């Protein structure tokens, strides 16, 4: 270890000071001696171009040639080497001139992970399991529109609100899920009224988002959304034929309806209050440019290129298996490249998943994206209250339950307390077993700070929340995307400048 200076003799290296008469230490005092540095902890990833991405606990990274990495690890870097200063500044090594390195790095680690202390900010209410569409890739087993046992009761809503307001997080987002959430407007109003009432004393920053297919959007509902500042998140899968094939609606033109209602909602609620998500099916492959054009045509400023998840009808109907990770990665890259071309032509538009990863690569703060967190976001980033009162740590957990697998069940609103859920062995087990820092392969992976755990995905695939990362589609996709974004940033051209702006 580099010794911490303890007396004047240790401090003095320069000839000026050696006389004992000078006021300042000589220049060469600040030049460490060869081999006098120590390593700070880091991980590494072998990039496709044979360089290494080396990252520290705070997510700062450098790209090193193989011989430079070996020199660094073996203590053979010269202080005069420009790389030495870069690695010191980015907290990969320290010497006697950088005694505050550990403190600084600790502060950066804390900043990056400050969300962990403020759990849980996202509370999802499955207001109903009823839906009026019959999407073949639906990740939740849909039920018919018959109003019966599939709506969330007011009693369960009240208990879920009590849970939500016990969360330490100073900001809470209430998200209305389904089925089709607007089919239970009474329940939705009950959540909003109850949340506003409780927040008079709680004083949290609260936000409401309705996930809806917009097929049953009335003027009255829109007016209510405006009055209560409720945002809308809808589904738009691309051009008319693709959207209608992916999201059938009783033989009607679902695409035309959603496009018209996006416009209506935007006029009433404002352009920033309406967002959309797409899901990639095998029918989407080869059509990414058309999908992006459709989003631009519909007035959106971003698209989230999402693969199918291994849950619900996506598994039963085999839609999930209709394309391999490689095909999705090619689809994704083609889409982002197209968006970069559009930006170069002056069209401001971005891809959401890239933006999240770029923020993780470039920003000192963490992101709130549930699937790319360590520890996993299960329970501590988001929690979901099912229509029947069951509590899951994530939307995917309840999707598994709809497939008769209750491994991710954390409790029930009828008989579980807040402590029962958040101190449960099951939640701790999922979080600790899936922790990337202690998972084989992830533990030494340089991409770890930009990736996550996603225990639901791995459980659904292999009945193991950790999964085998060398065989994991989640790992394969994220590794390919992060590598590609890092290489793109490194080119330092117009496209890399655009990508940097997405990460700010």
């Amino acid at each position, binding site marked *: 270890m580099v010794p911490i200076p303890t007396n004047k003799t240790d401090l003095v290296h320069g000839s000026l000071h050696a006389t004992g008469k000078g006021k300042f230490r000589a220049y060469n005092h600040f030049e460490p001696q060869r081999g006098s540095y120590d390593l700070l902890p880091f991980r590494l990833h072998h990039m496709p171009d044979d360089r290494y991405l080396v990252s520290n606990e705070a997510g700062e990274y450098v790209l090193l040639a193989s011989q430079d990495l*070996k020199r660094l690890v073996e203590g053979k870097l010269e202080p005069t080497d420009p790389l030495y200063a870069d690695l010191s500044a980015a907290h990969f090594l320290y010497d006697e001139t950088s005694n505050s390195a*550990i403190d600084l790095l*600790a502060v950066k680690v804390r900043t990056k992970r400050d969300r962990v202390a403020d759990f849980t900010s996202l509370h999802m209410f499955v207001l109903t399991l009823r839906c009026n569409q019959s999407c073949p890739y639906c990740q939740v087993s849909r039920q018919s529109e018959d109003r019966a046992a599939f709506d969330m009761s007011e009693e369960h809503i009240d208990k879920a609100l009590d849970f939500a307001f016990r969360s330490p997080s100073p900001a809470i987002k209430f998200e209305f899920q389904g089925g089709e959430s607007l089919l239970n407007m009474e329940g939705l109003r009950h959540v909003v009224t109850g949340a506003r009432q409780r927040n008079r004393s709680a004083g949290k920053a609260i936000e409401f988002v309705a996930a809806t297919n917009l097929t049953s959007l009335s003027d009255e509902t829109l007016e209510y959304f405006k009055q209560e500042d409720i945002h809308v998140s809808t589904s738009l899968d691309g051009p008319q034929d693709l959207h209608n094939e992916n999201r059938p609606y009783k033989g009607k033109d679902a695409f035309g309806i959603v496009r018209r209602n996006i416009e209506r909602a935007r006029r009433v609620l404002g352009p920033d209050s309406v967002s959309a998500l797409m899901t990639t099916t095998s029918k989407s492959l080869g059509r990414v440019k058309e999908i992006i054009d459709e989003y631009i045509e519909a007035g959106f400023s971003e698209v989230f290129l999402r693969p199918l998840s291994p849950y619900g009808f996506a598994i039963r109907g085999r839609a999930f298996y209709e394309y391999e990770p490689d095909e999705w990665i090619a689809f994704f890259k083609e889409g982002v490249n197209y968006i970069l071309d559009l930006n170069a032509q002056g069209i401001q538009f971005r891809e959401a998943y890239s933006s999240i990863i770029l923020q993780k690569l470039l920003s000192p703060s963490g992101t709130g994206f549930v699937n790319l967190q360590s520890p996993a976001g299960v329970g501590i980033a988001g929690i979901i209250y099912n229509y029947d009162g069951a509590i899951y740590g994530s939307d995917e957990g309840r999707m598994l339950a709809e497939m008769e697998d209750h491994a991710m069940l954390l409790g029930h609103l009828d008989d579980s307390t807040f402590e029962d859920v958040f101190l449960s062995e099951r939640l701790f087990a999922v979080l600790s077993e899936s922790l990337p820092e202690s998972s084989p392969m992830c533990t030494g992976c340089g991409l770890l700070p930009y990736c996550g755990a996603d225990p639901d995905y791995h459980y659904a695939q292999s009945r193991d929340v950790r999964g085998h990362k060398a065989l994991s589609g989640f790992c394969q996709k994220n590794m390919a995307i992060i590598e590609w974004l890092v290489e793109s940033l490194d080119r330092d051209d117009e496209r890399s400048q655009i990508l940097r702006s997405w990460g700010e």
Partner: protein
Amino acid sequence: MAAETTVEVDAELYSVSVIESAIYRLALSLAGRVSPAGNLGYRVYLAAKQADLTEEDLQHLFHTQLVDESLREKVDEKTTDLRNLILAHAFSRSGIIGPDPDEQD
């Protein structure tokens, strides 16, 4: 028929955990088995999982991965204590790490 090969690994250069980590990380491409080879080190049997991989590919993949895993092990050996110190320091004032229950009495 899928390619297979056997590689001798010098125990003075690479530990068994490095060899196992290399096999684990390459699990999409190959299966491996480690066995002792006298005082010299280890004998590693590698079998391709992908039809287009040759014997030379298997050896190249494995040796490249050995070097990477060995570097990881060296960095870990030198920095594990420091990593724990940094993480403890980072969360010491966050409220996440509570007082030791044994010290509260």
